[in-house]
C-alpha cells in the first residue's frame, strides 16, 4: 500500500533533516501496516516471506499475546536491504510516526556504512523468498515432516558459524565470502621443502645444514603435511560450512543446510552491533526530533515515547540507552579534546573538569566510530572509567543464600570485564570442529574453548544428538565440566561422558 500523502511528505521532510546532518541512507520504502501484519513481519524477522516453519508461528503466537495484553508494542521495524524497507504501525500518532522515521534513518545509515554489514546481501528480500520456495519444493517432494525435522536439526547448530569468515580474503571470493556456500576442493601433493641451504662447496654442507637440524625440519614438515591432510587442517568455527562440505547429506538436505547457513551469516552483523546500531538510531531520532522535526504541541508525546525507548530496568542493559549515551560521551570528549596521552596522564581533577581544547572533532569521530566498530570493540574502546562512574554501572550476582540478585561491585575493571564477557561471541560459547576422522573411524570431534563458564549440559547433549543425525557417525565434544576435562560422546544410541587427560587448547 502506498504511503498516505501526509506521511510521504513527512518522510521527505525528515530525510532532508537527516541529510543535512550528514546521514547517508539507502532509498527507504515505508509501508503502513496494521498490528497483525506487524506481528507477522516481526515474526519473520522483518521479511515478508520466509520458509515455512513452526518457529515463526511460535514467535507470532508470543507476539500477538503480548500485544493483546498490552505488554509490548512493536513501534518500528526496518531491514538491512537496498532499498531499505521499514514498517509503520497503522494508528500510531503522527509524533510516533515521525519518531520512527527519524529512528529508521539512523538504522538505515548504519546498515549502509558500518563495515560489519559490508558483506551482507542487500537483496535479501529476494534471497529469503527464494529460500522459501526452495524449502517448499523440498517439502512437496519429500514430505513436510522430514524437511521440518531437518530444519529443527539445523536450527540447533545455526549459531556455530565464524564471525570473521566474511572478512577472510581467501574465502571472500567475488560472490562474497560466506554468502556462497563452500565447494569441495581437490587437494594436490606439494613437495616437501625443508629449507636446505645450497652451497657449491660440498665439504661445508654438514656445517651449513647440520644433519640433526635437517632431520628435525623434515619431521616437522612431514608433520605439517599430516596436519594439512587432517580435516579440517586447523580447528574451524564455521561448523555449518564444514558439514556442508563433508557430511553425507542428501542433495535436499545440503540445500536446506545451505539456506540456514546463508541466513545465519546474513543476520550475524545485526547481532554483532546491537548496542551500536540501536544507539546510533536513538542518537539520531533524538537529535533530529529535538532540533528540527518536533513541533511545539508534540513535545510531551515525544518525551513520553522517547523515554520509553531508553528506559532502563535495573538488572539489564538497554542497548538503546547505553549506545546513545556512549555516542554522546564520545562526541563530547572529541569536541573538547578529552582523549589522548595528555588527557590520560593528567592528574589534576580541576584541570580535567575545565578541560576544553575546542577541537570540535565530535561529529566526525562518531561517524567514524559507527563505520569501524562493533559492540565488543565499541565497549572495549569507549567504555571509560569516567563513563562507568557517571552512569552508575555496577555488576550484580545472585546471592546464594537469599536467591535474589544483589549489587556486587561498582569497580570499573570488573564492570567492564563482565560487560565484555556478555558481549563476546554474543555471550555464547566458542565451539570448534577439530577432527572429522576422530579415532580414525570417521567420527566428528568438536571442542569447546572454555572461558570460565561450563556448557549447559542438557542442551549440549541434545545438540550432539542432532549433530549425529547430520554426521551419521558418532560425534564427540571436548569440554570442561567442574574444572575437569571431559569428553561427551553420542554414538547414535547412548551418551557417554568420559575423563580426558588434559583440557583441549586452541593451538
Amino acid at each position, binding site marked *: 500500500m502506498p504511503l498516505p500523502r501526509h506521511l510521504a511528505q513527512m518522510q521527505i521532510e525528515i530525510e532532508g533533516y537527516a541529510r543535512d546532518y550528514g546521514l547517508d541512507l539507502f532509498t527507504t520504502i515505508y509501508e503502513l501496516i496494521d498490528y497483525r501484519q506487524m506481528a507477522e513481519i516481526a515474526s519473520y524477522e522483518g521479511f515478508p516471506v520466509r520458509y515455512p516453519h513452526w518457529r515463526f508461528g511460535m514467535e507470532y503466537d508470543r507476539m500477538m499475546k503480548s500485544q493483546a495484553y498490552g505488554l*509490548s508494542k512493536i513501534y518500528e521495524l526496518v531491514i538491512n536491504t537496498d532499498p531499505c524497507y521499514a514498517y509503520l504501525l497503522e494508528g500510531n500518532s503522527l509524533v510516533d510516526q515521525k519518531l520512527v522515521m527519524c529512528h529508521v534513518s539512523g538504522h538505515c545509515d548504519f546498515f549502509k556504512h558500518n563495515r560489519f554489514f559490508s558483506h551482507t546481501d542487500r537483496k535479501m528480500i529476494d534471497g529469503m523468498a527464494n529460500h522459501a520456495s526452495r524449502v517448499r519444493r523440498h517439502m512437496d517432494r519429500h514430505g513436510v515432516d522430514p524437511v521440518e525435522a531437518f530444519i529443527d536439526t539445523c536450527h540447533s547448530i545455526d549459531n556455530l558459524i565464524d564471525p570473521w569468515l566474511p572478512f577472510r580474503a581467501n574465502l571472500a571470493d567475488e560472490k562474497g565470502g560466506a554468502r556462497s556456500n563452500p565447494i569441495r576442493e581437490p587437494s594436490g601433493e606439494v613437495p616437501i621443502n625443508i629449507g636446505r641451504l645450497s652451497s657449491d662447496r660440498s665439504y661445508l654442507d654438514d656445517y651449513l645444514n647440520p644433519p640433526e637440524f635437517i632431520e628435525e625440519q623434515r619431521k616437522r614438515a612431514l608433520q605439517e603435511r599430516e596436519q594439512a591432510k587432517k580435516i579440517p587442517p586447523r580447528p574451524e568455527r564455521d561448523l555449518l560450512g564444514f558439514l556442508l562440505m563433508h557430511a553425507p547429506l542428501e542433495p535436499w538436505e545440503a540445500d536446506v543446510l545451505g539456506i540456514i547457513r546463508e541466513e545465519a551469516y546474513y543476520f550475524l552483523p545485526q547481532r554483532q552491533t546491537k548496542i551500536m546500531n540501536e544507539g546510533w538510531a536513538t542518537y539520531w531520532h533524538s537529535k533530529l526530533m529535538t532540533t528540527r522535526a518536533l513541533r511545539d504541541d508534540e513535545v510531551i508525546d515525544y518525551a513520553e515515547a522517547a523515554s520509553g525507548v531508553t528506559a532502563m530496568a535495573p538488572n539489564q542493559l538497554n542497548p538503546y540507552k547505553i549506545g546513545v549515551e556512549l555516542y554522546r560521551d564520545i562526541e563530547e570528549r572529541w569536541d573538547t579534546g578529552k582523549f589522548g596521552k595528555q588527557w590520560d596522564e593528567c592528574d589534576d581533577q580541576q584541570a580535567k573538569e575545565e578541560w576544553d581544547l575546542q577541537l570540535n572533532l565530535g561529529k566526525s569521530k562518531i561517524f567514524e566510530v559507527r563505520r569501524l566498530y562493533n559492540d565488543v570493540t565499541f565497549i572495549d574502546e569507549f567504555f571509560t572509567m569516567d563513563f562507568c562512574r557517571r552512569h552508575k554501572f555496577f555488576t550484580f550476582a545472585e546471592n546464594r543464600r537469599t536467591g535474589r540478585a544483589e549489587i556486587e561491585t561498582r569497580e570499573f575493571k570488573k564492570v567492564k570485564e563482565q560487560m565484555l564477557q556478555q558481549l563476546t561471541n554474543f555471550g555464547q560459547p566458542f565451539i570448534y570442529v577439530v577432527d572429522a576422522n576422530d579415532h580414525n573411524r570417521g567420527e566428528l570431534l568438536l571442542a569447546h574453548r572454555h572461558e570460565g563458564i561450563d556448557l549447559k549440559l542438557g542442551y549440549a547433549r541434545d545438540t550432539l544428538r542432532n549433530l549425529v543425525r547430520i554426521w551419521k557417525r558418532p560425534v564427540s565434544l571436548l569440554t570442561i565440566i567442574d574444572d575437569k576435562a571431559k569428553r561427551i560422546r553420542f554414538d547414535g544410541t547412548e551418551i557417554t561422558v568420559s575423563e580426558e587427560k588434559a583440557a583441549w587448547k586452541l593451538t
Partner: protein
Amino acid sequence: MISRIEKDHRRFREIVRGRIRENLRRYVSRGDMISRKGKETVSIPMPQIDIPRFVHGSNKGKGVGQGDGDPGDAVEQGEGEGDGSGKAGEGEGQKAVEVEVTLDELAAIMGEELGLPRIEPRGSQNLETVKDRYVGLRTTGPESLRHFKATFKRALRRQIAMGTYDPQRPIIVPIREDKRYRSWKSDPKPQSNALIIYMMDVSGSMGDEQKEIVRIESFWIDTWLRSQYKGIESRYIIHDATAREVEREVFFSTRESGGTMISSAYRMAVELIEREFDPSNWNIYAFHFSDGDNWSVDDTAACIKLLREQLLPACNQFGYGQVESPYGSGQFIKDLRSAFGDEELLITSEVKTKDDIMDSIRDFLKGGR
C-alpha cells in the same frame, strides 16, 4: 486465502498439542500445571519445544546493571524490555519456553489421550437459568443504573427547548423527568448443570503426598467435567471422625489427626444434596478419597447402606479413590468391592503413586456418565 504466518502458527499449535499429548502422563503426575493455572488457561513449561544449542550454563545470575545502590543491595527485577528489543549480551535460551493452552483444549487433549467418551447430561431440559441482559433505556429505575449520557442529553434538549440553555455558561441540570435508566431483559436459558462433591479423609494417616495426589486428580476431574457442562458447582467435604464442608483452599491444606469415620462424610453429602441439589435437575458426581482405614466394621456397614440407599440413586457416578498410606490397612476398598460387585455407578480405583493418577482418572471417567 490464509496467510503464511497463520499456517506456521497452526503448525505450531499442532506441535504443542502433540507434545502435550505425548507427555500428558508426566505433566499429570508432576502436577506443576495446577500452580500455573490462570482463569481460563494454563501455561505449560515445554522445554522439548525449545531448540537445543551449545550455550553457556548458569553464569550464577551475574550481569551488569545501572542505577543507585551500594554493594550488597538487592537489584530490583526489571519488568519488560524497552521497545521490544532483546537484552544486551544475554545468551539465548535462558528462559524455559512456556506455552499457553486453554483449559478446554487441555480437557480435549486428555479426552483424546484417555479415550474418554463425552458425557450425556441428564435432566438438563428441566433446568433453566435466567440471564439478564441490558437492552435499552426506561424512565424509572434505581440511581445506580442511571444512564449518565442519555440523562444529560435529555436535559440539554429540554433546556434548549425551554430557552434556558446559555452556550456561554453551559450548565445543565437534569430534573427527574430527564433521567433515564438502563433496562434489562431476562433471557431464560436451558442449561446443563453439574455438581461435584469432593470428599477427603484428612485423618492423621493421610500424608502430604497422599493429599497431593488427591489435589492433582481432582484438578483433572474438574477440568474434564467443566469441559462437558456449562455450569459446575464444586463442594468440598473433609472428614476424620466427623465431617465438615470447607472451602477449596482449606480442603487441600487441612491436616487433622484422629480417627476415621467415613460415614460422617457420606451422611453430609446426602444432606447437602437433599438441601440444595435436586437430583432430577443436577448431574451429581461424588468423589471420595481416603487411605481406606475406616474406624470400625459397623461404620463401613453404615457407609454401604448410605451408598446403596441414598447416594448412588442420586449420583451420575460415585468414585472412590484409595491412596496408599504407610499406616492404613486399605480395607475399605475391599469392603466396597465385595458389597457392590460390578455396580456401574460405583467406581473404585487404587492410586498408589502419582504415576497411577492417569489410570485412575480413566477409571472414573470412562463410563461417560
